[in-house]
């Protein structure tokens, strides 16, 4: 187990700068998740930590030791790949013990560690099978087992669940979370699935264009996003954005937008869809997507434009229905001209329905 420290880390492929000056501190035993849109550099950053890619600037330390020029196998990290990367010509037992064999660990010790990992991951009955004889979930568990047997200081996961079906993904997510609790090892996990990020992470790192946009706990990122990008990336469906002046006109007199605010954000789950005349802003329903537990309403609000609202319950207004929208003003987010969130004293605001 070890701390992981990135200081000014950069990575370029020729003239193309993929990772730009990333600073990050991961404490021993922490579960950190990198999220961001495709091409944001999250997998590249993980590969830089693993040693599969060299960094072109900055410093990378694991357990206080500078690792910039240390080969991948000697960094004390283990990686679980998206495609599992199990050796097809080796049985599960040999796959799991392969790294130890390369490192010339004694055979009895290899057998002991493989058996131990197999017990942890419930793989005992599969040890003599080939990867082609396993299901997707079993392969994923073998890939994790292969990482465990080396007793690494840091586990790296590169979108490990993206090849599994939805049900298995939920199951494996719980298994990985349980594994982290049992082992207590530092884990760095890459995903584009924000549900995975929110449920697994102690700390989420949001990346965009190779830069860190914000680092924080899932609740921090949801409640206090640093900017419009994070606000819209965290949360599903994504946050609605309105023109601040337009929205201000709908607010009661004692509630004014934060100073310097250009845009206002409101999450779909914070919007209350009410009968006409009962809310702050009137509008109509453009379409209604029934989701079982409720509906996702596509609204057009007068003077504010299109937005989304979550409606809980089965009696959601239908297409074309006139509605009005209310909201708790403490749930409003204000952003300045540079798209940064303006910190406000939320407690001062009142309920505005």
């Amino acid at each position, binding site marked *: 187990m070890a701390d992981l420290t990135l200081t000014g880390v950069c990575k370029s492929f020729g003239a193309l700068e993929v990772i730009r000056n990333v600073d990050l501190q991961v404490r021993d035993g922490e579960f950190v998740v990198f999220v961001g849109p495709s091409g944001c550099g999250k997998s590249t950053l993980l590969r830089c930590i*693993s040693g599969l890619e060299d960094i072109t600037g900055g410093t990378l330390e694991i357990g206080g030791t500078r690792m910039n020029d240390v080969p991948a196998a000697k960094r004390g*990290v283990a990686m679980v790949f998206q495609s599992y990367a199990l050796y097809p010509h080796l049985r599960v037992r040999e796959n799991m013990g392969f790294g130890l064999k390369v490192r010339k660990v004694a055979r009895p010790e290899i057998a002991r560690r493989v058996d131990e990992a197999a017990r942890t991951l419930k793989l005992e009955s599969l040890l003599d099978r080939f990867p082609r004889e396993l299901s997707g979930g079993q392969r994923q568990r073998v890939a994790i087992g292969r990482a465990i047997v080396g007793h690494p200081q840091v586990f790296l996961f590169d979108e490990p669940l993206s090849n599994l079906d939805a049900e298995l993904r939920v199951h494996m997510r719980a298994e990985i979370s349980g594994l982290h609790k049992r082992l207590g090892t530092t884990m760095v996990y890459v995903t584009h699935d924000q549900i995975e990020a929110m449920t697994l992470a102690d700390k989420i790192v949001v990346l965009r264009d190779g830069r860190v946009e914000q680092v924080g706990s899932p609740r921090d990122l949801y409640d206090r996003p640093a900017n419009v990008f994070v606000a819209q990336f965290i949360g599903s469906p994504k946050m609605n954005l309105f023109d601040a002046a337009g929205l201000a006109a709908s607010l009661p007199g004692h509630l004014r937008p934060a100073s310097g605010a250009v845009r206002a954000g409101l999450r779909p789950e914070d919007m209350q869809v009410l009968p006409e005349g009962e809310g702050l802003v009137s509008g109509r329903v453009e379409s209604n997507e029934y989701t079982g537990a409720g509906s996702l309403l596509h609204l057009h609000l007068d003077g504010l434009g299109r937005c989304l609202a979550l409606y809980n319950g089965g009696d959601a207004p239908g297409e074309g229905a006139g509605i009005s929208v209310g909201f708790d003003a403490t749930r409003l987010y204000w952003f300045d001209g540079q798209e940064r969130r303006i910190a406000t004293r939320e407690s001062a605001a009142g309920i505005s329905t």
Partner: protein
Amino acid sequence: MTRFRSPAVRACWYLSLAILAVPFVFPFLWMLSSAVKSQAEIFSPALSLLPETWHWENYAEVFRYQPFARQYANSLYIAGLVTAGTLFISSLAGYALARIRFAGSGLLLLVLISALMMPEEVTIIPNFFLMKQLGLMNTHMPLILLPMFGSQGVMATFLMRQYFTALPPELEEAARMDGLSRFGIFWKVALPLSRPALAAVGIITFLYSWNLFLEPLVFLSDIELFTLPLALSNFTDAYGLPLWHLQMAATSLAVVPILVVYIAAQRQIVESFALSGVKG
């Protein structure tokens, strides 16, 4: 297979295939039949696959007429060496071209592939002078070296390269994380996974070397050093006319190893060619 569910349709289909197979199978049967006929019966107007009298002694005569056992052994050991050497070189070179980034690798591949376009007849004279200068005339060395480093070697390298290119890079990255060197990755991961390609390249190379005719004709003069294709053309009478019954008997002996190897591994040959075409 739903198309052939009806027995009548299936019967028609098999009958058509059987008719189409005749031009391919008949010469082979004719060879086996002629191998046990007399020279006169081969040319008798009554065409028959079954001989009137079975001349099994033709096979013994093959070995008396010239040192056929020695020539058979020559072909076997040369083809074996060429196959082993080609597999070694082409797998290493193919892996390097597929996986190692180095300046000019694309250009090198282009040059190699363009070498495939050049007929061997064009290079035989320069090769003759080269081998003569190296003092390798009337030895087996040209028959071993030229296929390994010539167009057959290039073909093998290209096939191996295509196969290695199709291997998932994550496997090699996992091997790197496990602590293997570049050669270790090649030896312990890439090579074991390329067994179908190795089998196909091995068979194709063996066939190539086994059937080589022009090079032995140019480089060998001692009958003891002859390989089978050259030996087969040597079953002639005093006037230089072919002794067909002996030629056919010798040829039917010559095809045995090829048939055995080909039947055993034909599926892997097809797989390898399909892979190099689709995934390359």
